[in-house]
């Protein structure tokens, strides 16, 4: 069966086919990826996986009604069926006056060069990738005699290409790469086991942390959990380490998503230009940082990406919107449309981070007489409508300004509205390890449940 190569021209051709069948507007998104991973465990290769994938998504409008479809089969027959199915589905959806593509005048024109791909790394040999994972694990396993086991170390790489074409003149594409390696050592003491991990991820192979650094950090993280105990239920200050603090920003970004807002499903509804946090809460969304994980030359609707102040010293300055959710709220898009192949656009932040403060992490821990330093959270206990928050946690107990002993089997609870207002200190230790990043954060009081 003949298969097509993905291209902007193919996108235009498909949209022309749809126009001929009566569609008034449409867009096509195409993604191809080349991915690899290897996991090693206890010094031996465990799994290797390699694949190339292609997917094509189509969305069509008939006036104000729309439907979307996607396929991994990029053949003539399949594409014809895709168009026909989409046309058929759009006939039963409702007329929605806010639907449609963004104004043509607003589309991104001069696409910025954001340094998102490391093509030279395509030449790295599989054996070298395996060696890197082996080295990372070895550095963790040999760090301390109490590290007795491992869930393995992984090296992965991903090369992706995104093509986006609309019926009203946008046609663009970009390619990017991601490299990562990680290890999850297991330590034991007195018959009880703990596991922790560390990872490094970058768009450039050369920017990855060394196997020694990743292995040793993972080792130190797991060792400090040994001998963890439960504590008495109490109210106390809670310090989130820079691995856990981003989860608070993830909660913030979903509460600020235009879709949550117009549906009435966000505790930040109607809070634009009001104080939603303490003066220490300054949040920026910036899709233009060269080489960063969340950067892209245009958003999921072909609109320009920008840098914006989302929260300024506690005052909410901007929601995260695409064209549709913006219209529903009477506002313009903020360039935050995200688009998966299979679904209509949604909203996501680009590089979303909490601006660093002046205090060192040691200063922050030092400021706590008795409280919790959180290094791990599990569970999903956040109600985005009310802000009610309750999650499982593990970490270290702070006594007289010092990390005293590990704790586990506890929960931390509060309400996100109060938690943002009660941010008392923000560290100077911001590192853009992922799309959503944060320095150390101290919240003056939460409920910790244990015994």
């Amino acid at each position, binding site marked *: 069966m003949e298969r097509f190569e993905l291209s902007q021209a193919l996108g235009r051709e498909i949209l022309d086919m749809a126009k001929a069948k009566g569609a008034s507007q449409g867009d096509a998104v195409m993604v191809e990826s080349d991915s690899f991973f290897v996991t090693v465990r206890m010094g031996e290769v465990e799994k290797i996986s390699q694949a190339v994938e292609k997917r094509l998504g189509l969305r069509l409008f008939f006036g104000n009604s729309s439907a*979307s479809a996607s396929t991994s089969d990029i053949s003539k027959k399949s594409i014809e069926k895709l168009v026909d199915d989409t046309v058929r589905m759009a006939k*039963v959806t409702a007329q929605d006056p806010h639907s449609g593509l963004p104004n043509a005048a607003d589309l991104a024109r001069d696409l910025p060069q954001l340094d998102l791909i490391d093509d030279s790394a395509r030449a790295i040999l599989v054996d070298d990738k395996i060696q890197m994972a082996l080295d990372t694990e070895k550095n963790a396993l040999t760090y301390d005699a109490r590290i007795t*086991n491992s869930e393995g170390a992984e090296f992965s790489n991903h090369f992706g290409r995104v093509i986006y074409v609309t019926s009203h003149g946008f046609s663009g594409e970009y390619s990017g790469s991601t490299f990562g390696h990680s290890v999850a050592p297991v330590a034991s003491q007195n018959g009880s086991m703990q596991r922790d991990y560390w990872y490094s991820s970058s768009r450039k192979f050369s920017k990855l942390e060394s196997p020694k650094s990743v292995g040793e950090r993972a080792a130190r993280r797991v060792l400090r959990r040994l001998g963890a105990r439960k504590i008495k*239920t109490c109210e106390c200050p809670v310090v989130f380490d820079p691995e856990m603090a981003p989860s608070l920003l993830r909660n913030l970004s979903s509460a600020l998503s235009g879709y949550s807002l117009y549906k009435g499903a966000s505790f930040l509804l109607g809070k634009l230009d009001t104080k939603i946090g303490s003066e220490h809460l300054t949040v920026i969304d910036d899709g233009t940082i060269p080489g960063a994980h969340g950067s892209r030359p245009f958003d999921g609707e072909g609109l320009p990406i920008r840098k914006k102040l989302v929260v300024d010293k506690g005052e909410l300055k901007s929601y995260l919107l695409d064209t549709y959710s913006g219209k529903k709220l009477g506002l313009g898009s903020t360039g935050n449309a995200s688009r998966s192949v299979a679904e209509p656009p949604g909203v996501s932040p680009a590089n979303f981070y909490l601006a660093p403060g002046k205090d060192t992490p040691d200063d922050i821990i030092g400021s706590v007489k008795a409280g919790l330093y959180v290094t791990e959270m599990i569970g999903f206990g956040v109600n985005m409508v009310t802000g009610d928050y309750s*999650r499982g946690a593990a970490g270290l107990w702070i006594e007289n300004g010092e990390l005293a002993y590990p704790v586990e089997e506890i929960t931390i609870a509060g309400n996100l509205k109060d938690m943002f207002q009660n941010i008392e200190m923000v560290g100077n230790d911001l590192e853009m390890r992922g799309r959503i990043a944060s320095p150390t954060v101290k919240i003056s009081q939460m409920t910790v449940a244990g015994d």
Partner: protein
Amino acid sequence: MTQENLPVAFFSDNFGIRAGDLDKVLDAALGKKADYADLYFEYRRNEGVSLEEGLVKNCSQSTANGVGVRVLADTKTGYAYTDDITIENLEIAARTARYIAQTRQSQVPVPVGQPHGEIHDLYPVKTPVNDVALEKKVELLYEIDKFARSLDPRVKNVFVSLGSEAKVILVATSQGLVVGDIQPLTRLNVTCIVEEEGKRQIGSFGGGGRVEFGFFVDNRDYERYAREAVRQAILNLSAIDAPAGTMDVVLGAGWPGILLHEAIGHGLEGDFNRKKTSAFTDRIGQKVASELCTVVDDGTMPSRRGSINVDDEGTPTHRTVLIENGTLKGYLQDKLNAGLMKMPLTGNGRRESYAHIPMPRMTNTFMLAGESEPEDIIRSVKKGLYAVSFGGGQVDITSGKFVFSASEAYLIEDGKVTKPVKGATLIGNGPDVLTRVSMVGCDLKLDEGVGTCGKDGQSVPVGVGLPTIRIDGLTVGGTKA
């Protein structure tokens, strides 16, 4: 043509893949050094229809097909996949997957178990929901919206979604097995937002399984979904702060079985036990629960979301006793781990798609009914929490700590259910929590068919079930210290 032959014909007709080709590719994959090789062909079509603000704004559909080639050599797995199903691509994938065998250290072959047991026919669906006219589905969504809004004036918004999937799989192995399955799956969800005096709350309810459209409409069961979503949202408007600390907890029947899934199930998956990273490692034959507890994983329950006729390695599903009267009996296995641990296959080798390597996964995991009346269980608690509905949960396999988050819970005071409390996360220790089960109800209930389990980045549909049980002392993560 029998049901079993349909997948063979499907991949032959649509992709030109013949039986002889399979052997050729499997031989190439196996090479001289590997223990085992298999191919996993998959064709999947998903459809989704959704309503919000009184409008069916979107219909979407997606089609995916591909094939994964796997090679096992002692503890190693080589895997390659392609979404372009041709013999040439299969041969390339086979060579890539075989790369793993070159790094093999031990020359002693690892025997990979042969599937045993008969292949089931658990979901004989005549008309898959995918094939029901779109107009009928759209009509149902409008009907649910109207009904939910009619229940209470405080209902401000209703979201309804109907998703369906039709999946055809074919597994061919180097042991000569060729087995396929056709797996329908559907799910209906109703969520509503209610508002009173500026206070908003949310409630959700859903259900489904490997069933036909009639499952939702024949007895107007969708009305129950809407009623439950509205009831839960309204109830939460008046919920008070949840307590914080350790207390006696009564879990209601049904979906609270997520406790078993998180606290016990994952820790009993073969891979973690072979690697000795599970808190349950080497504990078969030991007491891990009170004598009242018998827990099984059963992939053979007709029409259920967590059931499958054969797992994704071609092994027929089984009913596996995990804990019997408090004693740990067995693990859940896939081919790799069963072979290395010299244990029988249990039909739990599952994967999200052709792009994923199989792992031991749960199917429907539940506790058998006991003898206590649910009312007596509640009456036995002086001060505690009664939790009847939950959101998600998670577990740290190694430390054994697990959480699950209540979305509907009440205080128990002097043996009576009193005030509703806000959602709170419950946290416990897997190997220890079931030892504190002091009463088990006679009211075993399975969930409604909405569970999805995530492990190592792969999602698969699962089910859970539980009778009402009492746990003496579990940490409740509320705000009221």
